[in-house]
């Protein structure tokens, strides 16, 4: 039977690195997806994702199971990503360029779900509108839309109340809607 996260955490705390490897295999893709959304750069996201697991490993002895392991992990990831984004202050165009490159790759290898010109334009505008959000607003959108996390979990990850999560989500969606009103 598959071990629960908490059982694996306890094994990690006892020094078993195999248990940590199992936790990494469970969450690496999810963490990477969230960080790509926040950082807008795939290479940087890979670095930050690895750093997230490294820091989690170092701090795992302090994890007491008060929250679920994944909220704890997401919290580390989001903090590092927001920190790194603020430090680097990269040109937002990086993401558009990276994502444009990806769209072209997809066109070559698979059918593009946004093959229609209108949808392609919508996608470009959407990426640009996401880039214009603050890191905090971007984080709530990503954690809710991509991960489908509850307001309570998002609040735990971002260190704010459920009410704040709610209002940030409302504001971020309004902003995106305004910028994309022609396409929606």
């Amino acid at each position, binding site marked *: 039977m598959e071990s629960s996260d908490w059982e694996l955490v306890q094994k990690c705390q006892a020094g078993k*690195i195999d248990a940590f*490897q199992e936790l*990494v*295999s469970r969450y*690496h*893709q999810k963490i*990477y*997806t969230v960080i*790509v*959304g926040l950082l807008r750069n*795939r290479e940087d996201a*890979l670095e930050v*994702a*690895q*750093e997230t*697991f*490294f820091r989690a*490993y*170092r701090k795992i002895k302090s994890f007491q199971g008060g929250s679920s392991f994944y909220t704890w992990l997401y919290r580390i990831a989001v903090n590092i990503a927001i920190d790194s984004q603020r430090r680097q202050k990269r040109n937002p165009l990086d993401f558009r360029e990276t*994502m444009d490159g*990806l*769209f072209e790759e*997809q066109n070559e290898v698979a059918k593009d*779900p*946004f093959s229609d010109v209108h949808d392609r334009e*919508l*996608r470009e505008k*959407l*990426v640009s509108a*996401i880039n214009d959000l603050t890191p905090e607003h971007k984080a709530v*959108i*990503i954690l*809710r*839309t*991509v991960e489908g996390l*509850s*307001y309570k979990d998002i609040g735990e990850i971002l260190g704010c109340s459920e009410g704040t999560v*709610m209002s940030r*989500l*409302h504001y971020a*969606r309004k902003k*995106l*809607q305004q910028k*994309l*009103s022609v396409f*929606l």
Partner: protein
Amino acid sequence: MREDCERTRESLSRWVDGDLSASDAEAIRLHLGSCAACDGERRQLEKLEFSLKSVLVSDVPRIDFEPFWAGVRERIKKKPSRREAIMEWSRSTFTPPALVWTVPAVIVVLLGVLSMNSFWRLGWQRNNFAAVESIDAHGRNVALLREDETKTTVIWLYQNQEGEDESSGENAETTPSF
């Protein structure tokens, strides 16, 4: 805009997320059924959610686990440099809430020094006591002054004037006479 339209639009985001109570969700559903404008708003929001998901999820490449894990493992095995170790220690020690202990600890130490002096008359300040301690590299100091006759204690935080050299700060540690 009608009042119920306004209320509906404020809650629409939570409705889409399924975060409303059953009765509130039902009220919204009924309103949407009878109000084309609010229903249009709902459609926009749902399309936005769908598009966001498409962009944020389907565009992220799958990453191979093995090389990813190798990168993490390499970091774990790497011995941190002296600088990294110091940074890590200071981060864990001097960030709230870890920092909370320092204020009472400093007060206890200072009071302890004062008590020792008044009970045992250590001799290094028979009547009055003064000490200046530098807190950090930015010229901030704490001065402790104790006047024995009136039992007055003053704890004074101050910063060196800009341009004041280090030696003047060190000189300040000498015990002044009252």
